[in-house]
């Protein structure tokens, strides 16, 4: 059996070259692959393209508490995203300085990103997409009327790497998620050339029911265990959740 289990996050990202494209999940902090993000920051690869549904700054936490996507901003050449920042905080204000220094931002709708990743996984050359017609998303793209309805030609996405946040993986790379860990990770794993997952637990082959596997081992190349109580761990998340609850402004954003 090929060994897919890596002992360190640094090793797992060691071959990511300058200019690589990376897809990963972010919907709140739960679905972040925090250890891989931190390792990629330490490695310092440059001119990266980051493909995410959302990139949102972490409020009130230090980088040691939460390694969120914005820590990678200095390493990015391009960002493909559906949500950049929080509306209540002036949306993308936090990336303005990078945009002024040359960061290219490609906006997408969430559903369009999911479909483009599927197109990448299924080997499609392009898709006629119904979303974005008449909006800024159609700028510079081919449009076409099919059966009386307008569509925009969108291109497949095949990231060089996917970072996926799993709950459990067996040693063959079969992954199950837990709640919002799942997000767009299954299709990112399918579309990417190399998929790296960080998981709460690595289990023996056979411990995951064949009917319950969500991301199959064929799509997973490297597995690293999140250190217990460490960055991105469920224990840490629970602590931070109570810390958030003590800060009024965040409570208002979160619970209203």
């Amino acid at each position, binding site marked *: 059996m090929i060994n897919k289990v890596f002992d360190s996050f640094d090793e797992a990202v060691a071959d990511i070259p300058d200019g690589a494209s990376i897809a990963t999940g972010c919907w709140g902090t739960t679905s972040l692959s925090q250890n891989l993000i931190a390792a990629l920051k330490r490695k310092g690869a440059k001119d990266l393209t980051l493909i995410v549904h959302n990139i949102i700054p972490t409020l009130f936490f230090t980088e040691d508490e939460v390694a969120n996507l914005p820590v990678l901003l200095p390493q990015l050449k391009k960002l493909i995203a559906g949500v950049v920042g929080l509306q209540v905080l002036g949306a993308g204000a936090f990336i303005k300085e990078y945009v002024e220094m040359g960061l290219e931002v490609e906006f997408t709708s969430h559903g369009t990103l999911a479909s483009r990743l599927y197109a990448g996984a299924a080997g499609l050359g392009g898709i006629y997409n119904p979303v974005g017609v008449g909006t800024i998303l159609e700028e510079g793209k081919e449009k076409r009327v099919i059966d009386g309805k307008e569509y925009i030609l969108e291109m497949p996405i095949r990231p060089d790497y996917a970072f996926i946040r799993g709950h459990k993986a067996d040693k063959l790379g079969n992954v199950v998620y837990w*709640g919002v860990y799942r997000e767009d990770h299954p299709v990112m794993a399918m579309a990417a050339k190399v998929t790296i997952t960080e998981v709460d637990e690595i289990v023996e082959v056979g411990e995951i029911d064949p009917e319950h596997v969500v991301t199959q081992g064929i799509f997973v190349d490297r597995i690293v265990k999140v250190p217990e109580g460490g960055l991105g761990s469920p224990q840490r998340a629970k602590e931070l959740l109570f810390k958030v609850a003590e800060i009024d402004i965040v409570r208002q954003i979160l*619970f209203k």
Partner: protein
Amino acid sequence: MKQRLEREVIAMRAAKELMDGDYVNLGIGLPNLCALHIPEGVIFHSENGALGYGPLVMQDEVEKADQHYVDAGARYFTPAPGMAIFDLVISFAMIRSGRLITILGGFQVSEKGDLANWNTGEDPLGGTIGGGMDLAVGAKRVIITMEHTTKDGKPKIVKRCTAPLTARKCVDLVITDLAVIEVTPEGLLLKEVAPGWSAAEVQALTEPRLIVARDLKEIEL
């Protein structure tokens, strides 16, 4: 100045559009206020991959929050019997295959049902697209809840949207603090007005011409 409906009341009126067995996705802001008034049997959808979940965790019960259950608006939700968790490919097939009703906020709605609700200005960084465009295009029914006019009194129901569009010809119904208006092929049909308001008074705060329904009535909850 005449009294307009409270935000809570707009939400209550919007919630009346839903019934047992409907699947609904609520946008952030005003639409979310509907959650508390929605009748039993309506099933909630969150873009980030949850269907049929239970009540949101309120401010005074943070001990109930589980970081694995966060909705698309970053609120903690509780699991409920019959809930399903899934990925975004499936989630957006739910949205785009016309099975959901969505209640969204709005900056502007045009007389043709065009919607602008993601960005007030021209700077793309000044707004978030997210799943809103998918909902506007894909939902079976798009209901917009918003104030009838801007803070400085300008109509938000307009002939042509000046803010960047979310989607064209997508809105089915607009519920404001003054009126309930249906988008029809013939134009905007004024169906209900806030108590104490006349059709003419609502028209005065609306840019395009309104068709007044024969059975125009006061908004009822």
